């Protein structure tokens, strides 16, 4: 049998068994919609948590009468610590300016002296933005000469860190369950559609078609239907994300990688499910 005939047959089979191919494509589309929603959900949750974490900073208040020079030296010491991304030194004068900006009044008009301490704002590198590290860092900074007090958003951090592992664990479990379910349901669907053509397969065997000849068009069919189903899911997801971005939540994240994953997964599952179903039906002779 010529190979191109197998390809043409595969495409024709999609038309021949309209109900079966419609159902397969719908199933692939829905299953991938599910996986896609899950992936986008994860990416966005991750993004939100990352956002919150990136806003975490330590405020280091220096001793009230520390000179600018000593302050700068504290700044340098902090920069030298592990995990510190950058440090911003705020002198007493800077603090006074900020006060003016925030409250609209010059502090020297209110009081005769400037009671605001100089301080440093410390940002932490990406991988270090967790409670236990920042706690350690804060005591370390606290021990530096000239530092009066270190403050940071303890509560938010400990909250995120307490529940994050649970959330990730549940999400991973849900993700795995989801993918297994998608595969099993698709496999079942394709198996049923192929089972529905069992008689035809048997007849082909009887007129001298080899296994490969029978298989190839089904594999082509599985590939095309899988890809097409995943494409439909991708289009729906992409459209939804655009709508959500526009009308509901403008910061929603869209990742091209997800659509590539979906398309590859659709085609692969289509091929694998067809192949596996056929193995069962072709077992005898």
């Amino acid at each position, binding site marked *: *049998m*010529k190979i191109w*005939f197998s390809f043409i047959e595969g495409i024709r089979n999609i038309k*021949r*068994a309209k109900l079966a191919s419609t159902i397969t494509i719908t199933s692939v589309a829905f299953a991938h919609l599910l996986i896609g929603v899950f992936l986008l959900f994860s990416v966005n949750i991750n993004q939100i948590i990352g956002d919150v974490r990136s806003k975490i900073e330590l405020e280091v208040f220096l001793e009230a009468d520390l000179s600018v020079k000593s302050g700068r030296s504290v700044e340098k010491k902090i920069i030298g610590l592990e995990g510190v991304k950058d440090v911003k030194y705020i002198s007493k004068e800077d603090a006074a300016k900020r006060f003016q900006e925030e409250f609209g009044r010059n502090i020297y008009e209110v009081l005769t002296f400037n009671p605001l301490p100089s301080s440093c704002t410390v940002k932490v590198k990406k991988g270090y933005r967790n409670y236990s590290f920042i706690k350690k860092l804060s005591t370390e900074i606290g021990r530096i000469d000239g530092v009066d007090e270190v403050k940071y958003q303890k509560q938010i951090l400990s909250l995120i860190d307490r529940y994050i592992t649970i959330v990730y664990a549940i999400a991973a479990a849900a993700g795995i369950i989801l993918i297994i379910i998608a595969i099993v349901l698709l496999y079942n669907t394709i198996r049923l559609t192929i089972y529905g*053509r069992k*008689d*035809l397969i048997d*007849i*082909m*065997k*009887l*007129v*001298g*078609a*080899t*296994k490969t*000849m029978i298989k190839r068009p089904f594999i082509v069919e599985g590939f095309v239907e899988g890809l097409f189903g995943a494409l439909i899911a991708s289009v729906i997801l992409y459209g939804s994300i655009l709508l959500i971005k526009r009308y509901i939540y403008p910061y929603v994240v869209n990742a091209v990688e997800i659509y590539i994953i979906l398309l590859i997964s659709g085609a692969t599952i289509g091929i694998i499910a067809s192949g596996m179903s056929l193995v069962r039906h072709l077992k005898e*002779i």
Partner: protein
Amino acid sequence: MIEFYNVNLDINRVGILRNISFRIVKGEFTFLIGPSGAGKSSIIRMIYMDVFPISGMVVVDRYSSAKIRRREISMLRRKIGVIFQDFKLLTDRSVFDNVAFSLHVVGERNKEIKRRVLKVLAEVNLSHKRNQYPDELSGGEKQRVAIARAIVNNPIIVLADEPTGNLDYASSVEIMNILERINKQGTAVLMATHDAALLKKYSHRQISIDQGVLNKK
């Protein structure tokens, strides 16, 4: 060409054939007769290696039932044209495509496929139905499609399981003429039939079985 050596056949532990031995040589035309349920179709199924003996041996062409491998079964079947008693047409494709399928299987070129299919459909008087689907055909028309598919490939053996069961006398004679003609060209024909009129008209050798055993004459 076709040899049965002391063949015993069981299906699902039920004894179907007992101690069958016979031989059909190249280019021979043979009738297979016997009452309903005697085992005619079962003999034919053993020849295209759809079922295998529990003891004894079936040899067809150069393949033996004892050691034929899967791929070889497909190869063998391409050299055998089978007219199944229940037709076994592919319901999801047209008459033309049903007949063409056997030629696609052997990798024939498209143009040649078209030429040969149209020729054989003309022989069985079905040219005008070539684009219809099996469900849109009468019983006799389906039977003629099955016949066309069996002979389009120039097989070395034709196995015909009651090929005229759904045909009137005139059509039956036409089919017999086709089978006789390809037989003349060197193809062995084994034809199971009940048709007393045909058996009377054609004086080919008869193999007769009853309840799974060969009738000695």
